[in-house]
């Protein structure tokens, strides 16, 4: 008697867990696609993939839960599973619930410093799109970096007007009146986000602009020689002529809804 009731419960419990984890994942993916939070996690190109799989998972979950209550359980004894039964589903369910409760977070300066701010990564140095036609004051931060990568002579940019938005990064090797205005660039998902940045020269000490605050900087480009940390030998600091934005007006703004640039 007792063993049969345990078996009954098992028969009911594991499929229910399966159904719930499907439902939870469907809801989570749909939540991300409707609130726009997916932009913090992946490249917007994948929007339809996320939306589509959210819908499919939701439908699968509904079918599953319905079939439990209609008591039409096909028995599948033959499944080679590495996990004890239910563990995979419990994990999935747990993660989905955690994802629903804890919103994804915008990557911050800490991550940027860990990944090393600089120009574009070494492997993507080949210019991808070089448009001389773009007006300097309309260039975004990533477009500035791209243009500089394609044509690195700092003097060529002297006097051009810049109007860029990014978050503040304090680099130890830069003098006190410089901040690094940075942004993360995403190729595929947040895991591969890498920071880019351009030095901004301030009138005041940089402590007025705390790390991770978002700024819109208006100014003009000048060419200056600044100390730059070597990317590979971490302690070596070399002098390098680089493009610097001399700030005329700085506005502190709230964290934008889509804080990342996309490639």
């Amino acid at each position, binding site marked *: 008697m007792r063993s049969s009731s345990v078996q009954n419960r098992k028969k009911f419990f594991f499929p229910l867990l399966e159904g719930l984890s499907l439902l939870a994942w469907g809801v989570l993916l749909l939540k991300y696609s409707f609130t726009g939070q997916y932009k913090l996690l992946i490249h917007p190109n994948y929007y339809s993939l996320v939306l*589509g799989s959210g819908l499919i*998972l939701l439908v699968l979950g509904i*079918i599953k839960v319905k079939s439990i209550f209609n008591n039409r359980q096909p028995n*599948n004894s033959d499944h*080679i599973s590495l996990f004890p039964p239910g563990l995979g589903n419990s994990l999935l369910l747990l993660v989905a619930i955690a994802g629903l409760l804890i919103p994804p977070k915008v990557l911050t300066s800490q991550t940027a410093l860990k990944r090393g701010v600089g120009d574009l990564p070494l492997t993507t140095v080949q210019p991808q799109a070089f448009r001389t036609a773009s007006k300097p004051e309309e260039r975004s931060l990533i477009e500035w970096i791209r243009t500089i990568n394609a044509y690195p002579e700092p003097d060529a940019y002297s006097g051009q007007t810049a109007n860029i938005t990014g978050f503040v990064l304090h680099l130890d090797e830069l003098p006190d009146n410089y901040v690094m205005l940075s942004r993360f660039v995403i190729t*595929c*998902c*947040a895991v591969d986000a890498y920071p880019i940045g351009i030095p901004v020269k301030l009138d005041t000490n940089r402590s007025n602009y705390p790390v991770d605050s978002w700024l819109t900087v208006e100014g003009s480009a000048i060419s200056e020689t600044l100390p730059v940390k070597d990317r*590979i030998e971490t302690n070596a600091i070399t002098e390098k002529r680089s493009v610097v934005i001399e700030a005329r007006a700085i506005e502190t703004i709230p964290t934008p809804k889509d804080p990342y640039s996309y490639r």
Partner: protein
Amino acid sequence: MNQLHDAFTLFLSLLVEAMPFLLLGVTLSSSLLFLISEKQLIAKLPKNPVLGSLVGSCIGFLFPVCECGNVPVARRLLLSRVPPSVAISFLLAAPTINPIVIWSTWIAFGDRPNIVIFRVLFSAAIATIVGCIFSIQPDSRALLQTSFAKRLQPITTSQSDSISPLLQSGTFLLGQGKSIPFDDSLSVDIKQANSSNFRSKWQLFFTNLLAEFSELGGMLVFGSAIAATIQVFVPREIILSLGQDTITSILAMMLLAAVVSICSTVDSFFALSFAATFTSGSLLAFLVFGPTIDIKSVGLMASIFKPKIIIYIFTLVAQLTFIFTLAYSYFF
């Protein structure tokens, strides 16, 4: 706390990225359960071991599953008396040489077509070579794990033994003195799949899809958690310093591939996060070695092969990957 939240975000990002691909893979593998008849497939297999291994490594195109999904398929192939060389090369190649993985690699590394092309070529070559090596052993039971070999035995003996047609079911064998329970759950699968009843077919499809999804999803959660932790708590400078020269960077990426164990459908996106800091050769090592051998798939393979054989496969694949990618980094 901040870092933990960062890690959680990256973890979610990996999962959200991988979920659609996982769903796609699981759906395809389940629908193939009854779209393709294994019996016909086996009848068409060439007898020559080299050709057999080559074909085996291309079967992945018909069963587009990642390394977690191909183990059940390989088991089913072995039970249908496919030579082990074919099954082994299928096992090694299928995670890479299938449309979904090639497609996702293309999306991730579209700007560097070399990586996509050589990932496929190297995986096919390694799978074929290893398959050929194991074709030298004609008796497949010597390779297989004991309980799995026992399951195979009744099939082979009862079918070759034409004297006693009554023993076809394989429940009792003369000369052994006791009956051997023939676990026919795997053949039941095929029977069910061949039955024309649409409803039961659909049910089989649905159950298989859910079972694979939950199991592989659980695996994915593990893999992503490890990957996100490494990303956040190990500064890239440490990994960077590991990957200084050609040889150590290849070894470091192979180690990473074995430890992280992400599914081949999504591992190219993971590799992309290292694209900035590692050489193409070492990325290739990650992409070739990762799908064939990792901690997770060794666990799954233990349900088929003897431990000794797994170690052989592991060593062979590791050495071949190393040699091939080293050659690649010198020539390109």
